[in-house]
């Protein structure tokens, strides 16, 4: 039995065995812009979650005499809003609902859309036709229009916003998941796995999901920025979060009446939306290159 020696003829690659995720992590750490954006998003989320323990002013307690104080007022770092409520506290607390409604629909749509797309791509045939033709119909609506249509019909409210935005983002994720899965399904290692006698579900679970999830995930992260803007936009239109809850889009709306009195104050909530959405976009771009996902 001399066969073990024969491998010596073939050059063994020098690099250490390295898993996929270790490589992604290493590339991410070397990308300063992405790390900064990740830091900003993380800080916003942590501040929102731990807002009650940060020693902030009460975001609901107004004062008739301290309305629309400018930025830099003593006791009110970022001034006060049209009801005299502390802007800094409201902006931090506002992150709770804004980030939740801005990110949650993409998370939900990621699970639902991936499931639909993977099934459509792997099973093919009539199942594929039914799922993908339904998806096509939703593509006939620009996303803003669809979100406003559903939210407008359902009425204002946090749950209604979550429902309408999730419906908006399921079709694009399904389409990407289907495309990626049909690509993977045609590869030889899926044939090799099927040749073992494994059931379709086992093949999907062990061989398909691991190889399609990262491109779908990267695509989903690229939608978070749009979702944030849309979620805040719904509240801005008055069909999202109801007053008096602090929420950036809603705050931007109520402060519009103050643009002649204290213009830059009224632009602050929008600034928060912009910074978050920019960081989410850059973070998604960084993830895309770190995970080697091609467009």
């Amino acid at each position, binding site marked *: 039995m001399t066969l073990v020696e024969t491998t010596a003829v073939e050059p063994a690659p020098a690099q250490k065995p390295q898993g996929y995720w270790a490589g992604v992590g290493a590339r991410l750490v070397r990308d300063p812009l992405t790390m900064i954006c990740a830091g900003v998003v993380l800080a916003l989320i942590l501040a929102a979650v731990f807002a009650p323990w940060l020693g902030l002013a009460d975001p609901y307690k107004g004062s008739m005499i301290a309305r629309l104080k400018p930025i830099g007022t003593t006791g009110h770092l970022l001034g006060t809003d049209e009801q005299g409520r502390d802007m800094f506290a409201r902006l931090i607390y506002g992150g709770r609902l804004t980030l939740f409604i801005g990110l949650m629909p993409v998370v939900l749509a990621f699970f639902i859309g991936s499931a639909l797309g993977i099934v459509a791509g792997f099973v093919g045939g009539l199942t594929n036709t039914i799922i993908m*033709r*339904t998806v*096509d*119909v*939703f593509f*006939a*609506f*620009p*996303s*803003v*229009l669809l979100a*406003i*249509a*559903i939210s*407008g*019909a*359902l*009425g204002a409210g946090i749950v209604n916003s979550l429902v309408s935005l999730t419906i908006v983002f399921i079709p694009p994720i399904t389409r990407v998941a289907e495309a990626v899965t049909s690509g993977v399904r045609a590869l030889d290692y899926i044939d090799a796995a099927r040749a073992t006698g494994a059931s379709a579900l086992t093949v999907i679970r062990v061989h398909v999901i691991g190889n399609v999830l990262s491109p779908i995930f990267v695509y989903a992260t690229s939608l978070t*920025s749009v979702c944030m*803007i849309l979620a*805040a*936009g719904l509240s*801005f*239109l*008055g*069909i999202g979060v109801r007053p008096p809850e602090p929420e950036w889009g809603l705050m*931007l709306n109520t402060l*519009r009446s103050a*643009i*002649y009195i204290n*213009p*830059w104050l*009224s*632009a602050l*909530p*929008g*600034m928060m*939306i*912009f910074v978050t*959405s*920019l960081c*989410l*976009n*850059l973070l998604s*771009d960084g993830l895309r290159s770190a995970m080697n996902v091609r467009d």
Partner: protein
Amino acid sequence: MLSYLIRRLILVLPVAFGVSVICFLLVQIAPGDPLTAIMPVDATAEEQAAMRAAYGLDKPLPVQYAIWIGNLAQGNMGKSIATGRPVAGEVFGAVQNSLLLAVSAAIIAFPIGTFLGFLAGYSRDSWIDRAVTALSITGVSVPNYWLGIVLVIIFSVNLGWLPSMGAGPGGSQSWAWDWLHLRHLILPAVTLAVVPIGIVARTVRALAGDILTMDFVQALYAKGMSRADVLRHVARNAAATALSVMGLQLGYLLGGSILIETVFNWPGSGFLLSNAIFQRDLPLLQGTILVLAMFFVAMNLIVDVAQAAIDPRIQRT
């Protein structure tokens, strides 16, 4: 080409059907009884039943859908609950204003986006490229309803150069081609143009960059062609894809102007839509969404067919 056109037209039918179903269902998912808006509060059970029968609301959903689509085919989109006027007239008047805004934004966005994208793609990895890339990421990340407010703060509140509200002097609803009206168009159109500038620039940058590294471009240089001639070749190759992206963006501009119209009180379809939402005017909501979505479907169709006609590389039989 003709066979492609026919096939594409046939493929539109199921999508149009699906769109109509979704618009029909919008009213069904709305909470509350549609009758409460029209019925007096003290109506008896018999009166309610009679009204229900009169509006066909006692019939099963597919029958209601068939009646609705039948009326639609005759141009009857129902009556607005708030004003009592036919929905069709209200919607088409508003869509004209929205189109004006969308086309103006496109006229601003497409040349600027193309120019920036071409500049960046032609000088890959230079500081110009990085600046354009940063600009386009900013453009697609900015909530444009907020940008509208910022522009109002700068140009209306601080500088006082441009009006911030409406489509004409004194809240005028009717459009005219004079400076008094055009002044009102500038801020909303510029605001609306920012996102498509970013998207068009990104698309053109990628296209130009890809094409410039292709073999045939090297061959053109090798043939002794001048820089300008090579650029012309590259532009023609990129045109089909770029045009299709722009066509879709025009569709998005019309559907996506709702928030901007609210910011600027622009009397377009978005403004109509937000009024419909607040007055729970469901027939108006339904009609507006339907018209905007169908416009988007038509836009998609035109883009596909145009792309097939322009791009010699795509054989569509």
